[in-house]
């Protein structure tokens, strides 16, 4: 416990912002999806850091639920990407505008 809590939070903030940059700049649907996973993980890191510094396992239980949701999200999201690829034969999210009115 010799490392201040702030260092973990700064690392978590850096990873979150990197994920945001990935979502904003990349056009490949799978890479955008992986950037979202990166953002989920940065939130997990700060929750585990707080939980460990407070000596309370509620934060780690919450991280467990976030992992469950991330697994469900990855399964459904990749199924959508496969359906999209079959339909349009492209992974470029700029070309996917069929829901635009």
């Amino acid at each position: 416990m010799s490392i201040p809590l702030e260092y973990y939070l700064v690392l978590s903030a850096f990873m979150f912002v990197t994920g945001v940059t990935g979502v904003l700049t990349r056009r490949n649907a799978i890479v955008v999806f992986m950037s979202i996973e990166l953002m989920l993980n940065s939130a997990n890191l700060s929750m585990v850091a707080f939980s460990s510094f407070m000596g309370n396992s509620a934060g780690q239980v919450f991280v467990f639920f976030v992992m469950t949701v991330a697994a469900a999200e990855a399964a459904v999201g990749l199924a959508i990407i496969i359906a999209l690829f079959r339909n349009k034969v492209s992974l470029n999210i700029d070309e996917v505008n069929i829901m635009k009115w």
Partner: protein
Amino acid sequence: MNLEIVLFIIFSGIAAVTAVLMITRKNPIISALFLVLNFASLAGLYLVLNAQFIAVAQVIVYAGAIMVLFLFVIMLLRPGEEKLMDFKPVLKIFAIALSAVVLLQIIYMIFLTGPGAAMTPVLESSIKAGTIEQIGRELFTTYVLPFEAAGFLLLAATIGALILAKKKFE
């Protein structure tokens, strides 16, 4: 300099560098492999934070299951067309500038409020909070309803993924 600081520097350095490499590589397979490395170093950081169960779950669920699923889909769809997807440079510069402003803002807020000063970390209670025994007890007493809901969510996701992937498009 004790072992904890050395491990923190190694793992946080790997995590930060691989996160940047992940979003800058052109080939999505290389991006996915850097993301696996990022998740593995996060598991190391969880061990430094005395969260044993979460560290193991991170390796099994994220670096194992989810990333294998990603690699499977990438290799199935053979996306080698990233060069054709030109990202507009103006948009890119704007996105990076926006992210830098947000990062500086968050760091400023972290050091302004200083949440670490408000809590006194005790090593024994921190180790106890991270054991699978303690997390399992919390999960099956206080959080039993969210636990069942998570199981239901996974069932729904399985059925949804099956239906989405099976559907034929004309």
